[in-house]
């Protein structure tokens, strides 16, 4: 395994994937004028800028809440995944 490969690492985790996205961008236009710290900081690589908008790969979310804190425009609506869904740490 390549050292520190993020996708391999996320693959080691246990998730119970929810069917709906618990992370929503409130106003997509705002992101165009932003440093997009969410994309830089997210430890699970959930956010990706595709040139037009943010692509949110919520399945890998580790539910740390960093994106919510770091968004300068408070533009991320951070809801909890439904009870019992999302990441389920086996070690923690």
């Amino acid at each position, binding site marked *: 395994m390549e050292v520190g490969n993020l996708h391999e690492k996320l693959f080691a985790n246990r998730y119970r994937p929810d069917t709906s996205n618990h992370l929503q961008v409130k106003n997509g236009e705002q992101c165009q004028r932003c440093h997009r*710290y969410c994309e830089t900081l997210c430890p699970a690589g959930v956010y990706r800028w595709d040139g037009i908008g943010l692509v949110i790969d919520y399945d890998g979310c580790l539910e*740390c809440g960093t994106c919510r804190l770091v968004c300068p425009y408070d533009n991320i609506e951070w809801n909890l995944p439904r009870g019992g869904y999302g990441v389920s740490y086996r070690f*923690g």
Partner: protein
Amino acid sequence: MDEKFDVAIVGGGLAGLTCGYCAAQAGLKVAVVERGEYPGAKNVMGGVLYVQPFLDMFPDFLAQAPLERKIMREEYWFLDGDDAFTLSHHSQRWKDQPNAYTVMRAKFDQWYAQKVEDVGALLITETNVVDLLREGQQVVGLVTDRPDGEIRAEVVVLTDGANGTVASHADLFPRPDPTDMALAVKEVLELPREVIEQRFHTPDSSGAAIEMFGSFSDGALGMAFLYTNVDSVSLGCGGIVSQMAERAVNPNDWLNTIRRHPAVAPLIEGGRVKEYSAHLIPEGGYNAMPPLFGPGWMVAGDAAMMVIGLHREGSNFAVASGRAAAETAVKACAVGDYTLSQLAQYRTKLKQSFVLPDLAKYRAVTGYFAQHPDFLTVYPRVVNEFAHQIMTVDGTSKWEKQRAVSREFRRYRTKWQAVRELAGLLRTLR
């Protein structure tokens, strides 16, 4: 839910479970609402748990609880590039008087939750708290995401952790600021037990805890850690969210630097990732704490910013504040008064314990490092350079080496600046 509870607790972490345990043991009707599949499913910490608060509660704690390794050695490493300058404390006194153990929170919290259920509390898992029930200003219960999901209670205790969403959603207090929160990531790396014991010199289930500071964080208030578990090691790092944003750095960038460091790499070689986690740590301390109580509610643990990052303390504050909240609820139920003035006893209790005095003592630490952004690069560099020069015998006189180190140091600081800076640090720690 038609039943009415004395205490409804949001979140089954160390603060919530302790509150639930103490309140139920005192005869109150308690509900603990946990969003994970099981308590611990969403709970992460580096892994070092101080055991004294639990020994007070459970006399046979060490035999019963799922603990990993007893910490017999604490180390601080100051890294600069490929160099390391390390300090360590070994103590046999910890053998008979255990201080800290590594734990896996998913396992530990399930064990603890069972204790809470055993004394009669109701544990409701897989359930999100989405809002608070109110009558005027008085908080009178919880709204969950279950159908028919209102839970009425005399007292609500918020222990929903560093990423708690209830308080800001219910307008009790705003979410924390990114200057007050650290983001940490961790890998649990599987290694055979005997390999760990050879590499870390930790026989017989003893363990080592290594904290690292230095050039990897590029001046941000950041740290890394390496802890031994029974058949894995935990490698992780973290830093203040706003400072990582300023540097446009992802915690995995730091982690990948650390794992390749020549002092770290041989210790983790061959380790297979069993789990990768991320979590916020409230580092803002005393100055960033929210109001601790209001009419019908209290807040404890990480949700109340009760952490001293410097000493890796947080679990002890969670337990102590959870217990203080329970004791306050017991008193309130005895007199049937759940108003703000009655629940103010919670703050008094925290003030009389170590919780608020200790948090107040370290109130300036996080701010100090924010104001001295190169502290954690300059000083590790200088100690490594000094050690290297003094320990290398190459025909140069020690006088000349000393002058070289001094010249190197003066590139960053005048003597006077250094004295002022270190005195300032001592003042914040005093």
